[in-house]
């Protein structure tokens, strides 16, 4: 009893700590907004042609002067984002920094994402403990209690990448919010919310469309759990030992039977697809209305999705595609475009097959792969998958090279501005300097992805071994 009280006290304290850290992160962001001359909004790492606030302001200006916002290859975002954020870019308060209202919108988006991540994490953790209890496996020897949700959301809030993306006024906090909303809705089983988030995220940046697989798995199978095989083995073994159990265990068995993850349920998935089609029709209708006199939806698809898929803008970013397409021979261009986009799609099936029992982890993987291979990556995307990593603190405890990766990420984020400065501003370096940096970043991301998958699979193996030991 005393232990439980103590536990609750610790829990309460921890909760208090979480809120304090969250408020501090908001204050930190606001201080950064007021910090003069940071010029983060024009950093290539922060704002890409898709997420730059300057381009959004230009699109809004063009629309206000009754021209198509997509005229002039400047703006490549959603027309709805234009209607929402556009007015904020124009409004200026005397004596305050420009785009103050926009910054506040992004801070709010960040806080919302963090809260949703926290909720997802709490759900996930509950499910995790439940499953462990079901399998009667005691993993953590010192029984330490990591609040995965709090960790993930604080990682999101205090990640320098997130802060930079938020203060640098790129629209990626909003894209991230939509993605997090999708996963939150799916993990909570709130189908309309998940569908809404999914449609909005896809509309904003196209790549979240691959999240349909983890979302469907989440809705069909429920939250992450060890492989189903283990539970089946366990229950079958129970049946074998059935006659010799006492009444107490029988009671427990009844409770457990209901908690054993059941098979794939098609109903929520069908609902989800229905809601998705409903929301997409609605969204396209809205876009069509807002672009009625400017060439309609075709124009929108051409200059948003078309722009993403054909990599027309060759300005440097932290990805590797810009330099490849600036250098590659014109007649190979289509080939490489196909290769790069197929590479994202190609990995979906093997990952989904191997990680079908862990849909949230699958989502994390897909997010990190798309952040690595997307045509205009920015640190905002990295921030999202890094915070998702926080959700799997237990599973990824044994991550190899974690210190190496940590140092690599820090090194890259320090070197990237230096290389950019040497190349663009001082002219003492050349494009290869910056490209080498981007290359190294890609390598670190690859190592992270590969190691995370391998650690997760090892974790499952360990669970199987432990439960097998228990069974025997």
């Amino acid at each position, binding site marked *: 009893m005393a232990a439980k009280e103590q536990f609750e006290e610790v829990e309460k304290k921890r909760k208090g700590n979480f809120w304090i850290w969250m408020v501090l992160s908001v204050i930190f962001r606001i201080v950064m907004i007021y910090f003069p001359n940071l010029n983060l909004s024009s950093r290539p790492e922060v704002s890409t042609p898709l997420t730059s606030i300057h381009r959004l*302001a230009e699109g809004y200006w063009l629309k206000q002067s009754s021209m198509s916002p997509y005229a002039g*290859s400047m703006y490549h975002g959603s027309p709805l984002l234009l209607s929402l954020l556009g007015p904020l870019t124009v409004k200026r308060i005397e004596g305050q920094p420009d785009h103050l209202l926009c910054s506040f919108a992004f801070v709010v988006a960040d806080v919302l994402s963090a809260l949703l991540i926290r909720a997802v994490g709490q759900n996930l953790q509950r499910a995790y403990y439940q499953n462990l209890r079901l399998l009667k496996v005691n993993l953590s020897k010192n029984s330490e209690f990591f609040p995965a949700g709090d960790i993930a959301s604080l990682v999101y809030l205090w990640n320098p990448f997130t802060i930079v993306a938020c203060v640098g006024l790129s629209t990626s906090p909003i894209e991230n919010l939509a993605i997090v909303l999708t996963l939150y809705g799916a993990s909570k089983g709130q189908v309309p919310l998940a569908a809404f988030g999914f449609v909005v995220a896809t509309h904003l940046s196209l790549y979240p469309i691959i999240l349909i697989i983890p979302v469907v798995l989440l809705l069909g199978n429920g939250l992450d759990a060890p492989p189903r095989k283990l539970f089946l083995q366990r229950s079958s073994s129970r049946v074998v030992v059935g006659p010799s159990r006492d009444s107490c265990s029988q009671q427990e068995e009844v409770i457990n039977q209901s908690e054993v993850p059941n098979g794939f349920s098609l109903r929520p998935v069908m609902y989800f697809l229905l809601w998705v089609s409903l929301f997409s029709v609605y969204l396209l209708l809205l876009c069509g209305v807002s672009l009625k006199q400017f060439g309609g939806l075709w124009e929108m698809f051409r200059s948003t999705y078309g722009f993403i898929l054909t990599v027309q*803008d060759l300005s440097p970013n932290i990805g590797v595609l810009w330099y490849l397409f*600036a250098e590659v021979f014109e007649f190979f261009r289509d080939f490489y475009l196909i290769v790069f986009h197929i590479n994202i799609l190609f990995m979906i099936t093997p990952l989904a097959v191997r990680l079908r029992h862990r849909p949230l982890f699958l989502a994390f993987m897909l997010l990190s792969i798309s952040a690595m291979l997307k045509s205009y990556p920015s640190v905002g995307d990295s921030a999202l998958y890094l915070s998702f990593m926080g959700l799997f603190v237990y599973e990824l405890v044994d991550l190899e090279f974690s210190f190496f990766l940590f140092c690599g990420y820090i090194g890259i984020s320090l070197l990237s501005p230096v290389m950019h400065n040497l190349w663009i501003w001082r002219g003492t370096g050349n494009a290869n300097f910056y490209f080498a940096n981007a290359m190294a970043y890609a390598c670190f991301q690859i190592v992270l992805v590969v190691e995370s998958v391998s650690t997760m699979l090892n974790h499952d193996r360990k669970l199987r071994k432990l439960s097998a030991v228990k069974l025997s």
Partner: protein
Amino acid sequence: MVSFLRLISLLCLPILFAVPAIGSVSEGTEEDFSEDLLLKPLPDRKVLAHFHFQSVAPSSRSNSYGRHHHLFPKAISQLVHKYRIKEMELSFTQGRWHYDRWGGFDSISSSNAKPSGVELWAVFDVPPNEVDASWKNLTHSLSGLFCASINFLESSTSYSAPKWGFRPASENMRYGTLPREAVCTENLTPWLKLLPCRDKSGLSVLMDRPSIYKGFYHSQRLHLLSTEFDSNAVDSAIVLDQTLTVVLQPYSHRGALGYSNAAQLQPSWSLSSIFGRKVPGRCVLARSSNVYIQLDKGLMAELQGMLGEQEMLAVTRSSSEGSTRNLAFELSANPDRVHMEMSSRNDKHLSVLYMFSVAEKYDESEPLDLRFTWKIPVVWSIPQAPLHVTRFVLGSGNERGAIALQLKSTKPSDQLIPNTVITDSCSLLVKVFQVVPWYIKVYYHTLQVFIDDQPHSITNVVEKMQVSPSEDKVSPGVLEMLLKFPCGLKSAALTIEFDKGFLHIDEYPPDAHQGLDIPSAVITFPDFFTSTQFAENNSSKSPILSKWQGQSPILSYTEVLLVPFTTPDFSMPYNVITITCTVLALYFGSLLNVLRRRVGEEERFMKDKAKKKFQVSQLVSKLLAKLRGRHWEPSESQAPSSSSNSKSKLLFKVILVAGLAAAWQYYFG
């Protein structure tokens, strides 16, 4: 209403422009050619020489020679008929016209001060959807005709369709510039070929290549005006104006003698000293062949201040009576006529034009060598446009920047301000036309206006604005603005920010590290026109004077901007492709490997494999043993068998390589 009238007057402007020129030849249906040379001392010790050749071809409908021409260049008339050109202007320029020193308020500066490089604009008489095709064909034809890379204007990224910013109400118009085109004698030769006398006789003999290309400014221009397709025109014709404007530094002998005295004394010059040649006579095919010397308003005012009324009479009137001497300067020949400018307002200081007819007096034995000798030092200023315009790039680094357009008031005296401006609440209208290449990504929402160094609201200043933003690799951005400034303006500045684009390696020009150019902006003052009326009415004979009598708009071109661009490493394509693909392969392979691997099964698989390998090696050794005719011992350990296996492998490899080498030798050696 006022603005409507103004619009009407603007609309009529090209017609006004054209009427005197065509009217002068309307009585005859014969082809006509006339040549003029204008010389003008400039305040900064330089001399302006302006050649003007006009060829007129009557309509092909009334032409008795069918498709043939006597004087008019056939190439040009074919061009006009093929592409249905209403009006066209092509200029090749080297150097920059200094509006503050060489004038900005006369018809020479308004029509002959051009941006450096090539500028081409044309108005077509075709349906709007065929204009682009006509333009492309025209650029190619002109490119062949003038030995210049005008064909680069064919690509849609290099030309634009101004609506109203460049010339008033221009439909079916296309405009393009090549700021970096080098202009030299290979462009002048085809231009001279269009003249009936080429440079064999007449005024064009003066075009000695070394002397005209060593000048400070050199602009050769071809202007074509055709009323051929205008069904309303009573008598249609094609008028071809060819002008060559050079600013030269006369070599002054006196400057070397005494520094103190010569410092203020303007250099004296003669035709032979500035061109190195004399005029041997007229071109016999020319209807008129005149040389003019112009003394502008500012100079006359200064002279009047120095000499007084009596002496000024000697400058203006007495010279017509034979005396070419006065206190200020001396002319070596008697002018045939002296034209005094007429003014609508009571203006004391007016420009004077001395006319020398080359027609009868001069021939090979007695060539015309006009000499202008200063006697007293004079310092004067030349009439200028209401605002002096400069343009520059702000910012450093290769990522972004801003274009700034600075307008500085030249304090126009009252006489320059037209009546309309005084009547309605005093304001100064300025039209800005700017073409920006697509790789300069302009943020039009960042346009800022500063008046007298104070930021100003855009809506108060910008009367009308037309933007057609640039589309990547398709079209350049065009900005047309009508600005309204208060009269008491001292200076104004416009800034607009841009991002520098990053291009594909094939899209960079050959010398990419030098930077890329932003073409000149055109600043027009729609309320101001220059028109010079001369007292004697028979001046309409000469094309130069008839041109001056028409109203010409006041405009100035800004400098061409050079924007440094960052470049990728041009030598890297293979490296980049291989490195990127390696990393991609690393990702793909290692991730797939991790996903594929199963620990338990892996062990079993390895065992199976080892067993299989063992069986195979056993089989091989058995076979070998049989071949060698020895008894095979099954107890043989794995190591020797594997070694024999590797030996045979090695042998096979050696044989393969040797065979390949032999084949190579055989086929390619």
